[in-house]
């Protein structure tokens, strides 16, 4: 149990290092003058001009050497200080604290919905491989996986929000608002996890121990509950770890589409506006969220699979 924790801690450090160096190097090499972007981001196109930009340039101390700026960022990070957004001039931590809640709500709702949708269907299909449900689910899954996330989102909006008026299309603040964006993410996740569940079910039900459970004399339901469920769940939960990448990436696209005031949305904007502290802050938090969720998956795997605890 110590090794996985150490592994995740190392990964978290790696994320911090990578985000720091990468975003810094990239942003420094971006085309155009940073002061322009910052001025533009702050004041908008009607007010920004050369004079405004000059004022911004002086206020930002952008002439600082890159290495020094990077070092000071790491130094600040150690003190849990992510700096001040160049655009809003508010502390990055405050902005992220506000956005992170929204993103986590979205991500976790999506994960929950996907777990409710995908694996149960996959298990049902896997119990009768080659059956009608299996084939239908295969077709559905492969089609859904061929749809880009934003298309799924738009289809859902037009379908559920406009035509049927069931759900609010966009916005934030009420419980109902999370459903569509979360569903958009969840459908993509479920399309894959139902196949994982299906394959796992087939593998388990054709395994020697499942067969042994039957010939031992266990009733099918007993056998499924005692030897099927846990063994099917292990690969599904493990796969959740793989899907987290999709989730985090999806958050970027889906938040933009649904005007969800989360961290992915903030990241895209920060990149466009060249708000280096925000980019580093958001990328760092997203990376750490990824690591943390992965650690959560580890814990769940450990809880499900006693082999992890003993080996």
């Amino acid at each position, binding site marked *: 149990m110590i090794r996985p924790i150490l592994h995740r801690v190392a990964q978290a450090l*790696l994320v911090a290092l990578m985000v720091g160096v990468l975003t810094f190097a990239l942003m420094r090499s971006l085309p155009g003058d940073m002061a322009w972007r910052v001025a533009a981001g702050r004041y908008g196109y009607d007010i920004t001009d050369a004079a405004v930009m000059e004022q911004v340039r002086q206020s930002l101390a952008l002439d600082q050497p890159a290495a020094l700026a990077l070092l000071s960022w790491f130094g600040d990070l150690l003190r849990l200080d992510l700096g001040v957004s160049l655009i809003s001039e508010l502390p990055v931590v405050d902005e992220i604290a506000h956005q992170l809640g929204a993103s986590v709500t979205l991500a976790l709702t999506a994960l929950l919905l996907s777990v409710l949708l995908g694996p149960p269907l996959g298990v049902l299909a896997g119990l009768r491989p080659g059956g009608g449900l299996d084939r239908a689910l295969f077709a559905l899954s*492969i089609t859904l996986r061929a749809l880009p996330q934003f298309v799924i989102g738009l289809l859902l909006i037009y379908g559920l929000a406009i035509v049927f008026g069931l759900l609010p299309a966009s916005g934030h603040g009420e419980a109902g608002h999370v459903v569509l964006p979360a569903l958009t993410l969840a459908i993509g996740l479920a399309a894959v996890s139902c196949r994982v569940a299906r394959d796992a079910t087939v593998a388990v039900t054709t395994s020697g121990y499942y067969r042994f459970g039957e010939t031992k004399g266990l009733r099918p339901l007993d056998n499924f509950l005692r030897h099927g469920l846990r063994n099917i769940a292990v690969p599904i939960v493990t796969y959740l770890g793989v899907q987290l990448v999709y989730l*985090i990436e999806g958050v970027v696209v889906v938040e933009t589409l649904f005007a969800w005031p989360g961290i992915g949305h903030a990241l895209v904007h920060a*990149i466009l506006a060249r708000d280096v502290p925000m980019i580093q802050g958001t990328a760092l938090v997203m990376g750490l969220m990824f690591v943390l969720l992965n650690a959560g998956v580890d814990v769940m795997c450990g809880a499900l699979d006693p082999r992890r605890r003993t080996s």
Partner: protein
Amino acid sequence: MIRLSRGQWAGVALLLLLALFALGVPQVVPGDPTRQSLSNALLPPGGPFLFGTDPFGRDMLLRLAAAVRLSLGIALLTTALAGVIGVALGVLAGACGGWVDRALCGVADTLLALPGLLLVLLLVAIAPGRFWPLYLGVSLVLWVEYFRMTRAAALRIAASPAVEASRLLGFGPFYRFRRHYWPELAPITLTVGAFGSATSVMSVAALGFVNVGVRPPTPELGQMMIELMPYYNEAPLILAQPILVVVLLVLALNLIAGGKTQ
């Protein structure tokens, strides 16, 4: 060498059909996919233009064909680049083991610590509208998958008696790669490649969606969708085309990947 299932054949057939469409249309229908004619905007399919026109009066048939060429081209290039690097390093790591393996795994783990889209977004932001950051970014994300799969297989193959036998029988590393590794890696490469291509098609479209992809007027599927999205009520058949094409492309690639999940 690689035996394809029925579904995989269907995927190959579909992909060939799309490629034929992409390459054949310009041969049959003369014209320029970026040529506008505002008086012919949003003509429905079936009229003077077989697939209709977009809001700028550009021929959808030509645009779709060009967009498929672009998507396939990017997909092919990125997967090929990532494939060559990934397989070569994967075999190297798997077959050599030791510090080579540890070093390469370290690099791969580092890249995996961060979601790929983030990497691509940052790279694309360096040179908006250019192709190379797209190629580089997508390849950088894809090669890790090749590497991991190839390495896992190579580890297994390297430990197999067949490879040991080959060595004892006096065969060199190239022979072993050709006769032992490659036949087993080929199907994996195909699967990963098909998945990678699908990922690449999707990523490029998603970047088009956040306006950081290929620059207009070059026809690109994601951007076409966004351009046409507002007309969903007015010209649904036009909007459906790029969506359908993306779905078919990714579907074909997913089918080739064997409907597998990973």
